[in-house]
């Protein structure tokens, strides 16, 4: 389903020369998944209208109206996760405050509707535009920041917005948020199947757009920026342009999801749903859990992270030692499961699944174990950690070159001295030049 911009695919591909045949298998798996999601409400539809078209096997999948709305909510959350992934997962600029963009989209659209009576269909594009503008406001100054410093900015931005909301509670409803605006196309609680399909259609549309962008040459540049910005510049590509683009695209997509969400019965323009730090953090967990830097992984992760606690909440089994029903410790269990998954599959669920599938395939074809002497490709999380470490080291004046110079015998001749000083001078920027 996802194309092989996934880092380790390159390494895996050598081990299986028949990758040409295994590629479509991923697409087929993805399409089957989407098809299953598409027919999910069909049994409910049949149950209501008692039409007998193909109601044989799918009966078992029958969902209640409440469950349909839950899955619809999960779609929106998955869109949030995908929007985070396109900027943070791909370019490695980690945003800790994507709720900023969800809220800009959602609140703009809701306020236009509530205050000026603008129809949702017209208010939503306005929300997207404002969110995109927010992407410019955060993304362009962020070009000057690297690694953790950018993340700090994104952590603060939603707090500023929340403070504004609280300060002007009359307009923005403060911490409690606004009342529900009109539903998109008038589709409300009475029609859960349509609520589901609106969410599903938007989910598929965003998935398609983000897959198209990230699988184009722009996606290759995004991941190259994550790996080495100087190398990207040396290839004649302007890293700032691509980073800004990723930021604005991400903000617009997140704003779109937020704007549509508030016009459905599954979401409201409230800080707790759009802006809270917890929202931003859960989005990150979802994307990393599913597979950072793959879009598809973020979509899967978003669905899991949203639905798993909901599911655990309904389990009546009582945990023996703790003597607590699962439904009461659902979030604890969810957090533990998430932790275990992150340890076991640092690259995310999607990468792990693809690797297992490939290994199975090559085993079946009788191919030996891959003898690819090279080290395992780094996961995006590891790449980001590397970026952060070097950014911090440069700030503290401990350039990575110093270490290399003393450990690398061949180059311990001091040849790197001018380099190191040059690096440090560069980081300190123009101010040292003037003295």
């Amino acid at each position, binding site marked *: 389903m996802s194309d092989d911009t996934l*880092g380790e695919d*390159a*390494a895996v*591909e*050598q081990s299986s020369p028949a990758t040409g045949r295994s590629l479509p298998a991923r697409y087929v798996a993805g399409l089957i998944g989407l098809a299953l999601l598409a027919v999910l409400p069909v049994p409910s539809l049949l149950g209501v209208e008692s039409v007998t078209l193909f109601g044989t096997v799918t009966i078992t999948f029958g969902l209640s109206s409440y469950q349909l709305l839950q899955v619809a909510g999960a779609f929106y959350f998955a869109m949030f996760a995908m929007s985070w992934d396109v900027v943070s997962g791909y370019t490695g600029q980690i945003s800790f405050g994507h709720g900023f963009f969800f809220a800009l989209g959602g609140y703009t659209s809701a306020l236009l509707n509530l205050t000026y009576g603008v129809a949702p269909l017209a208010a939503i594009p306005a929300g997207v535009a404002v969110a995109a503008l927010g992407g410019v406001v955060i993304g362009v100054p962020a070009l000057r920041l690297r690694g953790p410093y950018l993340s700090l900015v994104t952590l603060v931005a939603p707090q500023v917005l929340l403070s504004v909301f609280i300060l002007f509670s009359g307009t923005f409803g403060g911490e409690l948020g606004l009342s529900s605006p009109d539903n998109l196309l008038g589709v409300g609680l009475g029609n859960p199947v349509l609520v589901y399909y609106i969410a599903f259609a938007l989910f598929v549309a965003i998935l398609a757009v983000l897959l198209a962008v990230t699988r*184009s*040459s*722009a996606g*290759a*540049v995004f*991941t*190259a920026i*994550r*790996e*080495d910005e*100087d*190398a*990207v*510049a*040396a*290839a*004649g*590509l*302007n*890293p700032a*342009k*691509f980073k800004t*683009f990723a930021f604005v695209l991400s903000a617009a997509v997140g704003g779109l999801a937020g704007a549509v969400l508030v016009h459905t019965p599954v979401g409201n323009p409230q800080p707790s749903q759009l802006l809270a730090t917890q929202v931003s953090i859960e989005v990150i967990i979802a994307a990393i859990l599913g597979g950072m830097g793959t879009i598809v992984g973020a979509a899967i992760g978003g669905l899991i992270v949203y639905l798993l606690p909901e599911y655990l909440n309904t389990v009546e089994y009582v945990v023996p030692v703790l003597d607590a029903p699962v439904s009461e410790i659902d979030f604890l269990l969810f957090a533990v499961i998430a932790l275990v998954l992150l340890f076991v599959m640092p690259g995310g669920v999607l990468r792990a699944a693809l690797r297992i599938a490939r290994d199975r395939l090559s085993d079946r074809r009788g191919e030996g174990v891959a003898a*690819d*002497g*090279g*080290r395992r*490709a*780094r996961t995006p999380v590891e*790449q980001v950690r590397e970026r952060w470490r070097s950014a911090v080291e440069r700030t503290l004046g401990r350039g990575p070159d110093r270490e290399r110079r003393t450990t690398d015998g*061949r*180059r311990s*001749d*001091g*040849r790197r*001295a*001018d*380099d190191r*000083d*040059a690096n*440090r*001078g*560069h980081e*300190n920027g*123009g101010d*040292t*030049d003037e*003295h």
Partner: protein
Amino acid sequence: MSTEPDAAGATGEGTVGYGPDDGVLVIENLTKRFGGLTAVDDLSFAVREREILGFIGPNGAGKSTTFNCVTGRYPPTSGTVWYRGEDVTGESAHEMVNSGLARTFQEFRPLHDRTVVENVAIGLVPDRLFSLAGLRGETGQRAASICRRVGLGDRLELTPDELPHAGLLRLELGRALATDPDMLLVDEPFAGLSGPEVESVSGLLRELRDEGLTLAVVDHNMRGLLSLIDRAVVINFGAKIAEGAPEEIRQDPEVQRAYLGGDL
């Protein structure tokens, strides 16, 4: 091109008047200071069309800093850089590449997360957000042919971590060539290469020059380099101490003093 930079430059005084049209790349009175340290001190020289210029100096002489000022990694403190008659002082790295001046990294900067051919392909991507030039198809074929050009044709699908030292150098060259440059700055290509590898890389660089490329090769080690280059500029402590043909450089007393009987 004119010959007066040669004659005047050999004195080592950086006040020689260079004009924008004295070469493909002209550097005039370039100075770069980091705090109290003057890494490049009033340096002037020109690189002529289709020559292989050696840019030589002992360790810490300021070669890399000069290089980085020219390729836009950071702006010079003062001085002017002309490329093809245009003032390009302080232009950013990607702008320099797009105007035709590509570089390789001394410390090798491959993208570890992708294959050799994909590393080269990134240099073929146009600097536009929306382009129809996919990384598969045609771009992939062009990238593969560039890989063959630099001698990596049989290692397209390896990752950079699986390449030997010489292979990484070839990959750097391939990625730079993919940007379709007129001029190539090669930073310390021979460090860590064996004798035969130096020979084969030298051969490749000569071929590139014969195809119309202008090259500036930086190295602190004159072994191997003097047989490759047409002309050399030698610097020490950030200032030019000699300039001329390889034979003249070898005989130059100041150069010999700078290297203290080192590896000349």
